[in-house]
C-alpha cells in the first residue's frame, strides 16, 4: 500500500512535467492545427541553457526566467521565420519542417554541450518532512511550480486583453482580424509561450532524468499521450491528461511488478515505458480522437 501511494505521488510529479509539455503542444495546436514534433527537443535545448547559466554561477531561480524568456524569443523567431511562410503548405511539408527542427535542436545540443550525461542539481532544498518517505522535495517542487505556472497562464488568458486577443485569434482568426487583432503576431506569441513553458518543464525535469540530448524522447511521447488523453484541442484537458498519464505510467509499471511477483510472469516494467505510451497514443487516437475533454470537430465537405 505504501508503495502504491509512493507510485501515485511520483506519477503526479512526472505528470506535472507531461502536463507542461502537453499544454505547450496544445498552445500551438489550437491556433495553427500543427503538432510540434520539435517541442521536446526545444525543451531539452532550454534545459541545457539553464544548465549553462548554472555553470556560470547564476542561481536557478534567476536563470529560469532568463531561459524562459530566451526560449520565448526562439519560439517567436521560429514561427515568424520558418513556419509563417509555409502557412498554406500541405501537412507533409509542415511535418517535415518540424522533423528538421527536431534534428537541428538535437544535434546542436550535442555539438555544443556533448553527449555525455550531465548532473543537474535540484533547485529545491533537501529537507525531510512528514510524508517525505512518499515523495521527495524535488517532486513536490515540480508539482508546485507547474501549478503556479498554470495559474499564471490561466490568469493571463482570462484576465488580460492580450490573452483575450490570443484566444480570439485561435478561435476565429478572420473575425479576430476584423476586430483589429494582429492574428499572425498572436500565433507567434503562442509559439513563444509554448517554448517558454517547455523551457520550464525541461529545466524542472532535468534533475530527474539527467541532462543529455535524448532526455526528452520519452517525456515528449508522454506529453503527446497526455495531450491526446485530455483532448488536444483543450488546454485544461491537456493538463489533466498529463497528470493522468503520469500516474498511469507508474501504476502500469507497479502492477506489472506485482504480477511478476505473484505469478512469476513478466508483462510490463520500466523497460516498456515507450511501448506503453505508444499503446496509449494509438488507443486514444482510434477510440476517442477528441480525448476526454476535447470537442469533436466536424469535417466540412
Amino acid at each position, binding site marked *: 500500500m505504501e508503495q502504491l501511494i509512493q507510485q501515485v505521488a511520483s506519477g503526479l510529479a512526472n505528470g506535472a512535467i507531461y502536463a507542461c509539455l502537453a499544454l505547450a503542444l496544445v498552445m500551438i495546436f489550437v491556433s495553427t492545427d500543427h503538432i510540434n514534433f520539435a517541442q521536446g527537443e526545444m525543451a531539452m535545448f532550454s534545459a541545457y541553457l539553464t544548465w549553462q547559466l548554472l555553470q556560470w554561477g547564476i542561481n536557478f531561480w534567476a536563470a529560469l526566467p532568463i531561459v524562459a524568456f530566451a526560449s520565448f524569443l526562439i519560439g517567436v523567431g521560429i514561427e515568424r521565420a520558418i513556419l509563417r511562410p509555409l502557412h498554406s*503548405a500541405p*501537412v507533409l511539408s509542415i511535418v517535415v519542417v518540424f522533423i*528538421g527542427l527536431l534534428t537541428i535542436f538535437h544535434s546542436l545540443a550535442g555539438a555544443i554541450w556533448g553527449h555525455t550525461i550531465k548532473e543537474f542539481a535540484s533547485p529545491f532544498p533537501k529537507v525531510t518532512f512528514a510524508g517525505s518517505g512518499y515523495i521527495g522535495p524535488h517532486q513536490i517542487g515540480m508539482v508546485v511550480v507547474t501549478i503556479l505556472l498554470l495559474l499564471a497562464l490561466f490568469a493571463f488568458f482570462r484576465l488580460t486583453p492580450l490573452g483575450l486577443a490570443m484566444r480570439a485569434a485561435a478561435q476565429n482568426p478572420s473575425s479576430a482580424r476584423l476586430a483589429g487583432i494582429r492574428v499572425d503576431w498572436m500565433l507567434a506569441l503562442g509559439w513563444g509561450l509554448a517554448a517558454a513553458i517547455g523551457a520550464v518543464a525541461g529545466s524542472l525535469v532535468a534533475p530527474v532524468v539527467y541532462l543529455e540530448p535524448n532526455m526528452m524522447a520519452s517525456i515528449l511521447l508522454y506529453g503527446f499521450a497526455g495531450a491526446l488523453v485530455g483532448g488536444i484541442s483543450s488546454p485544461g484537458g491537456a493538463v489533466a491528461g498529463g497528470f493522468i498519464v503520469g500516474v498511469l505510467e507508474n501504476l502500469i509499471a507497479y502492477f506489472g511488478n506485482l504480477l511478476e511477483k505473484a505469478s512469476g510472469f513478466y508483462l510490463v516494467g520500466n523497460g516498456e515505458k515507450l511501448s506503453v505510451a505508444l499503446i496509449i497514443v494509438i488507443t486514444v487516437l482510434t477510440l476517442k480522437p477528441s480525448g476526454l475533454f476535447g470537442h469533436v470537430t466536424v469535417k466540412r465537405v
Partner: protein
Amino acid sequence: MATTTTANGLAAVRRMSLGQGRWVWAAVVILALLPIIGGKTGFISNYGFLQLSLMIVYAIAVLGLILLTGFNGQISLGHGAFFAVGAYTSAVLIDQANWPYWATLPVAAIMCFVVGYLFGLPALRLEGHYLALATFALAVAVPQILKYRHFEWFTNGVQGINIFKPAPPFGLPLSGDQWMYLVVLAIAVLMFWIARNLLDSRTGRAMMAIRDHSMAAGTMGINVAHYKTVVFGISALYTGVAGALHAIIFEFVAPDSFRFELSIAILVGAVVGGIASLPGAVIGGVFVQVIEKYADALTKKITTAVHLPIDLEPWTIYGIALIVLMYTMPMGIAGGLALLWKRLKGS
C-alpha cells in the same frame, strides 16, 4: 501558386517515371555488369559494392514510404519499424532455423505486409498530423519493443544477431559482396517494376484519387478503407524487404540500429528524392547512404570553412537541408529536375 507548381511537378514526374523505360533498362544493364567490369579491374572494391548495395536497399525502403505518403497521402514517420520487422524476420530465420537467405525474403515480405496491414487499420481513422503522431510514437518505441523480454529468446535482446554473408552459388567467380550486390539489384528492379505497374493500374489511380481527395474518391465508388489499409501493407512490405536485405548484407541486426533516426532517414530520403516519384526513390536511397557515409567529413569541412566555434554534427545539416528543401523544392530533387526539364523544353 504553390498548389499549381505541385500539380505541374507531379505531372512532370509522372511522365518522367513512366515514359523513359528504355533508359532505365540501359542503366540497369550497366549496373548489372559492374561486378564484371569494376570487380575484375579492381576499379570498385568489395567495400564499394557493399556501399552500392546499401544505396539500393535504402532506395527500396524509401520507395515503400513514397508509395504510402506520396501516392496515397498517408504520412508515416515510423517506417523504421517495418524495416526492423523485415530485418529481424530474416535474421531470426537464418540464425534460429538455418534457412537459406533467399528463402527468408518472401517470409519477411509477408510478415511486413501483415504487420503493416494491421497498423493500417487504426491508421484508417487518422489523418494528417494525427497519423504522423501515431507513427512518430511507433518509431520512438521500436528499439524498446525489440528488447522486450519475451522476445529475447529469438531476438537475442540488446546483443542482436550475427549472421554470415552468403557465398555466391554455382562456384561463380564473384566475391560475396559482388554476388549480394547482384541479388539486391535484381530484387530492386523487380520491386520498382511492380511498383511502376501498380501505380499505372486501376489500383494506382485509386490510390492517387484517395490522396487528392479521399471523400470524393469514396463517392466515386472507391473503397477508401480497403485501399488505404492494403497500401499500408504494401508499403510496409517494400520497406520490410529492404530491411531484410540490409540485415543480410550487413550481417548484423540489433535493436539500436532501428532507432528513431532510421525512420527519419527514410523520410528524408523520400522528401529529398521526391515524395511522389519512382526515380525520386532512387535519388533518395543514394542520398541516405551518401549522407550517412560522408556527412561527418562534409560537416567538418563546413565547420572549418566558416570557422564555427563548435563542431557541427551531421544531423544539423540534415535538418537545415530538410527545411530549405521544403521552401525551394517541395517535390524533392526528382520534382525539381522534372520541372527544370519542362522549362528547358519550353512547354
